[in-house]
C-alpha cells in the first residue's frame, strides 16, 4: 500500500500542444474547481454593493480589510495600496486551493510542487522587475551590497546575498508544498492505521484524533496562504523601500 498514491497525477484527457504536455489531470480539475468556486462565491457575495453593507457584503469587506491591513499594511506600508490586486489574488487562490484539498478523495493542487513553483516564480520576477523599475539598475545592483560591510568582506558577502535571493522563491515553494503534503499524509496515515491493524477497536482512538488533525489542517490552510502572501509582500516591500 503506497501512502503517496493520493498525490500521483492521473491523466483524464491527454493533450499535446507542440510537444508540450498540457493534459487535463486531476490537479487541473481540482484547481479549476477551486478557482471557479471562489469566483462564484465572491461574485454572489459582492453583487450590488451598497454604502451600508449587509451581511454578505461585510464578509467580502472583511477579506479585503484583512489583506489590506494585516498583510499589506504590516509588510509594505506606505505605497502598498496598488499591490492589493496582486497579493489579494495570491492569497485567495492559495487559500481556495488549500481548502479544496480537504474534501475527502480530492487532490490538493498546492501539494504538487508545480503550482507553488509557478506562484513563486511569478513572485520572484515581480520582486526583481519592481526593484529595477523603482531604483534603476545601479540601485538594483546596490541591493546586493549591504551597507557598512568592509571592502575585503565583499567577495564573501555578495555571493551570500545572491544565494539568499535565489533561496527566497525556493523556500516559498518548499514551505507551501511540504506543509500541504505533510498535513494530508498525517491524515492518511492515521486513517490507514485502521486498515493496517484490521481491527475496529483501533478506530476508537484514531477517529477523534483524525478529526482534531483535520480541524488543525483547516487552520494550516489559512495560515500557509497568509504566510506565502505576507512573505511575498515583505520581499516586495524590500524592493520598494530598499534598506541599504
Amino acid at each position, binding site marked *: 500500500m503506497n501512502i503517496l498514491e493520493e498525490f500521483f497525477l492521473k491523466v483524464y484527457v491527454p493533450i499535446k500542444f507542440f510537444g508540450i504536455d498540457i493534459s487535463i489531470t486531476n490537479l487541473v480539475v481540482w484547481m479549476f474547481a477551486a478557482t471557479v468556486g471562489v469566483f462564484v462565491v465572491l461574485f454572489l457575495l459582492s453583487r450590488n454593493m451598497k454604502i451600508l453593507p449587509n451581511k454578505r457584503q461585510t464578509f467580502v469587506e472583511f477579506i479585503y480589510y484583512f489583506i489590506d491591513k494585516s498583510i499589506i499594511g504590516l509588510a509594505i506600508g506606505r505605497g502598498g495600496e496598488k499591490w492589493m490586486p496582486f497579493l489579494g489574488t495570491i492569497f485567495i487562490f492559495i487559500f481556495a486551493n488549500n481548502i479544496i484539498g480537504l474534501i475527502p478523495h480530492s487532490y490538493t493542487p498546492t501539494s504538487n510542487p508545480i503550482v507553488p513553483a509557478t506562484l513563486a516564480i511569478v513572485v520572484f520576477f515581480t520582486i526583481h522587475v519592481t526593484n529595477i523599475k523603482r531604483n534603476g539598475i545601479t540601485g538594483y545592483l546596490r541591493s546586493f551590497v549591504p551597507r557598512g560591510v568592509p571592502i575585503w568582506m565583499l567577495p564573501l558577502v555578495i555571493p551570500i546575498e545572491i544565494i539568499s535571493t535565489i533561496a527566497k522563491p525556493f*523556500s516559498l515553494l*518548499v514551505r507551501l508544498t511540504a*506543509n500541504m503534503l505533510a498535513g494530508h499524509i498525517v491524515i492518511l496515515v492515521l486513517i490507514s492505521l485502521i486498515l493496517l491493524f484490521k481491527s475496529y477497536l483501533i478506530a476508537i482512538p484514531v477517529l477523534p484524533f483524525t478529526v482534531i488533525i483535520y480541524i488543525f489542517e483547516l487552520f494550516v490552510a489559512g495560515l500557509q496562504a497568509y*504566510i506565502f502572501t*505576507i*512573505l511575498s509582500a515583505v520581499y516586495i516591500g524590500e524592493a520598494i523601500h530598499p534598506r541599504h
Partner: protein
Amino acid sequence: MDAHGFALLSAGLAIGLAGIGTGIGVGFLVGKSVEGIARQPEASGAIQGVMLIGIGFTEAIALYALVISFLLIFTTG
C-alpha cells in the same frame, strides 16, 4: 543492512533531528510572543503577525528535512 535500509534509517533520523530543533525554535518563538502580548496587550496584533511569519520561517527547516526524507526513501532502493 543494505543501502535502502540505511536510507530509511537516515530518513527517519533526518526528520526526527529536524523536529527537535524546530520544536525548540517554535516553542521559544511562541513563548516570547506570549510574554510580549502579556506585557503589552494593545500590541497583540503586530506581535501575532510577526510571530506567524517567524513560525513560517522556523517550520520551513523541518519541512526541508521532510523533503530530504522523501528523497532518501524514494530515490534509493
